[in-house]
């Protein structure tokens, strides 16, 4: 590149003329009388003009006459300002009407006055297109920002908005602040903002702390009581923000809202809600009781009815009534549990859990639910002790729920229950319990909502499986209350599901020898034969101990048992006698019927004693306190079954059969 060859032409073109002519910024150079001296090529091409048409023409004439769409007034303003101030004046955003249907365009105009010793010689006007409507908008905003904000802040009545200096003294005061706090600007400016704080907050040094936090975090928000000038209180939401200018801290802005009304509304809402929740749980408990009582009446009448000689068809129908009645009872109990759980009034007790006992009792209870040919297997990690500290009633409830679900959804195959410890330290275990079935399984999309209340796997119109949809949700809450979790995954080996839950249980200081489970857990299939017939076959060979302190009741029970076919009946009149007889005949006895309230030792104490002596004879509780929760407590104490008083013969027969058949 030969620089020398270029320079002549450069020097030749470097004149005022070409400087203006060649600038890409559309430019017009005016003389002092505002006539056009020079025009840039970019200006000409922009407006599609010839240089001859412009030179010598007055600038306003050109712009007005040529219909260039330029806002003449704005241009004039720019020129006049530049001329009078002798400074460059830029006027942003001058709108240019589009030609025809073209969208309007926006221009920035810059008027550059050129003086020579106080005398105006030239004015150069440059036009620069601003790119978009948005930018235009922005420019507009910038123009008004300060004024707008000041005006807004001043006039806002619902918010107290004011500035504090770095020490926390009030610097500005708006109308909202005056209305809310009752001070006029004159009264408060210069005072410290802690004036607004209550005595308690001052004692707690809240203003100082807020300033500290605000300086550290840039912002602090607080909701508490504040004082008005007249000493009255209001519930305030306060946002304090640090304000910096050029990196120097210059103070704080403070926005205070009066939330007294909202707070009052909130507390009204809360108390209304609490009242409603209380009413709801009272209503539920009441209704549950009201429904349960006639249900029990109906079911016991039904038992008597099935005792009479019925045609096969009638027997089938009574069977249906009984089954539906039992389902209804389950539903009612579920709802009662749920209402307690959601009200947070569900106690978790600490007691002894005998894991094999609970498992075997659950297995027994689930047998009637099993579909034909489905078996239940139980296995337990041998390193896990049989007895741990926890809530046996709730542990049993969760397990029972999972097992009966498995039974409900398994048409063939088996259900496996496995217990093991996932974690152990000096004091506790995480007891993991797994229920594996070979049932219908659960598709992925539904598995997410499994533990949500009121949802069910099967929501099809032909809903095959009954229930409230509360069971798993109750189980989840219970597992969590016991320091564990609950979960589900598909059965990895075959079709079906694996439900598991964990429970945090404490170790017992000494371990008690494991109860023999195998006998109790032998699989049986459910027989359609009348249980009383079956019972009368096996009863004569069985030995039974009846502990009942009321002679009248004892006589009636003995008579009833004889009626069921029992020939060997021992009786005890109090708990201590029962313990003694149970120990004495531990090898001969097949079942114990135990009244709950008896003198000397009550039925529960006697059961604990008997179990402590290592006697594993099934014990069936007899009591008039027929509350659902009690049943769980008896089972947890080591009892195996429960019959409520006055004793219904059919129920007694069912329970006895269940506990005698497996030998």
């Amino acid at each position, binding site marked *: 590149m030969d620089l020398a060859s270029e320079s002549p032409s450069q020097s030749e073109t470097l004149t005022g003329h070409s400087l203006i002519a060649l600038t890409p910024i559309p430019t017009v150079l005016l003389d002092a009388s505002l006539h056009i001296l020079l025009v840039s090529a970019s200006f000409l091409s922009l407006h599609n003009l010839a240089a001859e048409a412009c030179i010598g023409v007055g600038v306003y004439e050109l712009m007005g006459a040529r219909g260039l769409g330029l806002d003449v007034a704005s241009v004039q303003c720019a020129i006049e300002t530049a001329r009078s101030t002798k400074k460059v004046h830029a006027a942003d955003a001058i709108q240019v009407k589009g030609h025809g249907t073209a969208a309007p365009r926006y221009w920035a105009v810059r008027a550059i006055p050129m003086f020579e010793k106080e005398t105006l010689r030239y004015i150069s006007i440059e036009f620069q297109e601003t790119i978009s409507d948005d930018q235009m908008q922005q420019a507009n905003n910038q123009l008004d920002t300060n004024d707008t904000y000041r005006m807004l802040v001043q006039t806002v009545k619902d918010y107290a908005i004011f500035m504090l200096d770095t020490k926390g003294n009030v610097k500005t005061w708006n109308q909202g602040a005056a209305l809310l706090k009752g001070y006029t600007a004159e009264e408060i400016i210069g005072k410290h903002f802690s004036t607004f704080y209550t005595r308690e907050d001052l004692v707690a040094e809240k203003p100082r702390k807020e300033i500290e936090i605000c300086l550290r975090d840039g912002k602090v928000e607080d909701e508490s009581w504040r004082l008005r000038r007249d000493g009255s209180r209001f519930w305030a939401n306060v946002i304090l923000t640090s304000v910096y200018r050029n990196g120097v801290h210059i103070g704080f802005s403070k926005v205070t809202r009066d939330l007294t009304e909202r707070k009052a509304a909130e507390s009204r809402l809360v108390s209304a809600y609490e009242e409603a929740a209380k009413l709801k749980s009272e209503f539920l408990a009441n209704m549950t009781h009201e429904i349960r009582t006639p249900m029990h009446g109906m079911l*016991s*009448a039904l038992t*008597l009815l099935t005792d009479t000689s019925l045609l096969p068809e009638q027997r089938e129908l009574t069977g249906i009534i009984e089954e539906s009645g039992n389902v209804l009872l389950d539903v009612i109990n579920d709802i009662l549990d749920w209402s307690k759980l959601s009200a947070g009034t569900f106690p978790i007790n600490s007691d002894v859990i005998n894991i094999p006992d609970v498992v075997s009792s659950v297995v027994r209870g689930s047998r009637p639910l099993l579909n034909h040919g489905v078996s239940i297997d139980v296995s337990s990690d041998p390193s896990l002790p049989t007895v741990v500290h926890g809530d046996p009633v709730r542990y049993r409830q969760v397990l029972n729920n999972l097992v009966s679900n498995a039974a409900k959804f398994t048409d063939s195959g088996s259900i496996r229950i496995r217990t093991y410890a996932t974690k152990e330290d000096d004091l506790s275990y995480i007891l993991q319990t797994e229920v594996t079935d070979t049932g219908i399984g659960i598709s992925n999309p539904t598995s997410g909502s499994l533990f949500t209340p009121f949802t069910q796997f099967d929501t099809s119109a032909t809903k095959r499986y009954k229930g409230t949809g509360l069971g798993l949700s109750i189980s989840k809450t219970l597992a969590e209350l016991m320091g564990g979790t609950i979960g589900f995954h598909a059965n990895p080996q075959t079709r079906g599901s694996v439900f598991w839950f964990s429970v945090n249980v404490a170790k017992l200081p000494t371990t008690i020898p494991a109860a023999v489970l195998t006998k109790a857990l032998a699989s049986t299939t459910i027989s359609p034969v009348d249980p009383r017939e079956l019972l009368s076959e096996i009863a004569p060979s069985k030995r039974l101990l009846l502990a009942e*302190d*009321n*002679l*009248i*009741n004892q*006589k*009636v029970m003995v*008579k*009833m048992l004889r*009626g069921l076919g029992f020939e060997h009946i021992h009786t005890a009149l109090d708990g201590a006698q029962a313990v003694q007889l149970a120990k004495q005949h531990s090898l001969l006895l097949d079942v114990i019927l135990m*009244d709950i*309230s008896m*003198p000397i030792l009550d039925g529960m104490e006697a059961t604990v004693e008997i179990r402590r002596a290592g006697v594993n004879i099934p014990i069936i509780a007899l009591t*008039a306190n027929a509350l659902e929760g009690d049943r769980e407590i008896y089972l947890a104490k080591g009892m195996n079954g429960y019959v409520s*008083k*006055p*004793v*219904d*013969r059919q129920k007694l027969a069912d329970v006895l059969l269940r506990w005698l058949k497996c030998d």
Partner: protein
Amino acid sequence: MPGGEEHEEERSEEGSFVLDLGDGIDSLTFEQILEMDDDDERDFSKSIVFGFFEQAEQTFKKMDDALKAKDLKDLSSLGHFLKGSSATLGLTKVKDSCEKIQHYGQGKDEEGTTDVEDDELCLKRIKETLETVKEEYEEVEKVLKKFFAPPQGSG
């Protein structure tokens, strides 16, 4: 007892267990006892019912004594005791009253749900309930004695 003769008539129609012994007795439960009789002589049920009369009278006496001694605990367990046998026989009203006595004796209200701190109040309630239960008892006693009475004449 205006309904007495009707009872006899219904019973004479044997087989159908439609018994109405008044609202103090739950017929379903009572019939269960009757069904335990080996024959029509009603030996068993009669012995039970008359055994109950004896037990009830003894218990009421014990309750009177315990009331004098202001022994709430004893009153409660006596209430529970008689509740058990009256429930077995289906003597609903007697059973309910005994249950109340049981609860009052535990320092609770009638339902056994709320604590009542005032012992004197509990004793007062027991006293009232004891009077009621004695009346209720006398009523069922009459009905049952009539029921078990040997058939008179042609009926």
